[in-house]
């Protein structure tokens, strides 16, 4: 509860639904754990289904409450993904810079989001496990045996420039991070918070159904009748 002790400034606050997508074991849950609890586990177990977490992010002019859906990367859960990215206002598509296939998978997710998610969705491409790239700062790397990568020097398989060029082409935010050292983790979320257009922010609820006026309109509200409900029709009770 990072924020609960802070004095409640009268800053406007809004919820943002954010989804994490990416191949298994690239470090999605680890990034979230770093962001939410400032913690890291060497052997984090794979996510089953998805996990839900929230975290606030204080910007100078407003507070963003992230409602985070951390999805499972294992293929057997792939068919679940649409229900998590629907209506999401932001997506973090994660790959592992030491594993070439994970960028390909990330690109698939980006393509799917561009076709299927809300039109205004903010997408960040994130290359994780930066600590394994730089030999001088990855003393633990050999012990980890990530994906069987070992040997001297750089475990990096994906040059930053390659991923950056792709991100630019698709107009994605781009970061390299390390959930392990914490590098750039908060920065990703802050950049996303800043990139969400003010107009798509609403009060704490209502954040869902962002994907356009029309859909919003057809939505039935179960928790309170609309303003002008008249119970005269048919309703005999």
């Amino acid at each position, binding site marked *: *509860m*990072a*924020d*609960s002790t802070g004095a409640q400034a009268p800053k406007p606050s809004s919820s943002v639904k954010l989804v994490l997508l990416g191949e298994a074991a690239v470090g999605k849950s680890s990034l979230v754990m770093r962001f*939410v*609890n400032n913690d890291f586990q060497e052997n984090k*177990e*794979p996510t*089953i*289904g*998805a*996990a*839900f*977490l*929230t*975290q*606030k992010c204080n910007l100078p002019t407003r507070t963003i409450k992230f409602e985070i859906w951390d999805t499972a990367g294992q293929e*057997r859960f792939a*068919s*679940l993904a*649409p*229900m998590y990215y*629907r209506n999401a206002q932001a997506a973090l598509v994660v790959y592992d810079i030491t594993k070439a296939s994970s960028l390909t998978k990330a690109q698939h997710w980006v393509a*799917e989001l561009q*076709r*299927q998610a809300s039109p205004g969705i903010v997408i960040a491409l994130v290359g994780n496990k930066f600590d394994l790239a730089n030999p001088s700062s990855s003393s633990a790397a050999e012990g980890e045996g990530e994906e069987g990568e070992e040997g001297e020097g750089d475990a990096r398989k994906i040059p930053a420039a390659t991923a950056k060029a792709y991100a630019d082409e698709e107009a994605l935010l781009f970061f390299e991070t390390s959930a392990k050292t914490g590098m750039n983790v908060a920065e990703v979320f802050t950049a996303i918070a800043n990139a969400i257009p003010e107009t798509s922010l609403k009060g*704490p*609820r209502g954040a*869902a*159904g962002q994907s356009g006026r*029309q*859909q919003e*309109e*057809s*939505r*039935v*509200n*179960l*928790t309170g*009748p*609309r*303003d*002008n*409900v*008249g*119970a*005269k*029709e*048919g*309703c*005999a*009770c």
Partner: protein
Amino acid sequence: MDSLEGTLWDVVLYGTGIRQSLLALALSRSDKKILHIDSHQWYGGAEAAFSLQEAKTWVEGIQHELEHPQFKKASLHHPERDDSQTDAPKLSYPRAYSLALAPQLIYARSDLLRLLVSSKVEKQLEFVAIGSWWVYQSALAPQGSSDDGTADGGESSRSSLLRVPSSREDVFADTTLDLNGRRKLMKFLRFIARFEDEPDTWQQHASKPFPEFLEQQFGIPVAIQSPLIALTLSLKPPSEITTEFALSKIATHLRSIGVFGRGFGAVIPKWGGLSEIAQVACRACAVGGDNGAYAAEEESQDGADSSFKIKLSSDGRVSTRWLVGDVEDLGLGSMKETSIGGGDSRSDTAIIASRSVTVVSSPLGSLFPPVAEGSPPPAGAVVFFPSGSLCTAGSEEISQNHSPVYIQVHSNDTGECPKGQSVLYTFTAELGPPGLQLLTNAMTGLLAAVEEDPTPIALWQMQYEQSSQWADADPPHTLHAVNNDRIICLPSSSPDLSFDDAIIENVRDAWKRIMGDEVDDASFMVFEDREEMAGIDEDDDDLG
């Protein structure tokens, strides 16, 4: 993190159909250790929603008998496309579709909606409105005579759709009825608003055919009964629909109108029907996969803590105090007689239906007229094809006694298909080739009756048969030696058009058995908001 085998689970929940999922939700805030598993690659069991690709896999699974025999005779149809015509209507990419196996509409007063709100998961769901009910009238059908309650409108040369009046105002404005017909319908609507208080009118007809009741008690001739029969959503021929059943269904329909907005009374979850509710409910407990065909095999019984071991096909053995699943998943064929069908389970349980799901090349906008000012634009409609409105196989003539057909039409506002298209879900009790022919004729009739130019076409279709229980005698698996009162066998799903609140009763009963004295009914699925919690708030009793 607990290992699967090393843990004594309180509950092993097998399958992610709507019942198991709601039970997972109900148990999610208890301190029970719950292992929730499913043998499928998708969530939702018989209430799943599929992309085109997943639908194909599912159909192949049925064809190879990998699926539960609840589903049969599945096939896919991809009409030939002439690709040289670039502006010909086309399917979109497979994931643009989320086609529902259970596109059941939910009446506004259903317990399900109340519980989704009280358990706070409603916030993760979206609902859209079912607007109009329509009755199909065939051009080939004989036209009304002068004293049958219909207005004398001359011969009609084409098939048409009549909107079912949903209020007394509607009846009053209905030009297809003559004055006499309107007056009789009004009288009936006044009666049904409070039919429980007037047992003298209907009690002696309770288990007799509804059409006779309408005729004898209200003088409503058969010719104008269809709109009322449409509201029963029954797949039976009218002569088999009992008065008691019909009255309660029609009353439910009418009493639901206005609850969430004027002019409509039923909703559906967006993005693929009950599947969406199942998934959201499942999230309350993490779900793991078990890739085998059958859930469990009784292994041993340990009297001391009344737990027993079950064998999972992929993950070895686990110990549990309770095992919950449905008839198919548990293979408890021997229990089906006693445990099927919550509540009143006489003859209504063994429903079998021919079904089809069709993607159509038009939004079919004329079926979704606005229902009332200020109400959300409807995303769904129901079209009823009464007995005597369709031709049957091999005949150019209307058959007087075919099974009725229902088509639920969903617009792209349901999230089930892309813009510019719509999805037709058909239902009839007629089986085999005649059933399929009937469904095809109904669809053809509907697409002609909307009078669009060019006539909309089917872009993709799947057909199958669904039964609410095993039709065959021998279940593949039995759990004879097991301590039966620790195994809860939930009824299997049935091809209903609307959500049956008996499902809620089944789930509540199972929840009470598992929770024991700790709970009372009032606390069933009533949860505090957990929105303000930061950090991982999934239950950590998953199988990591």
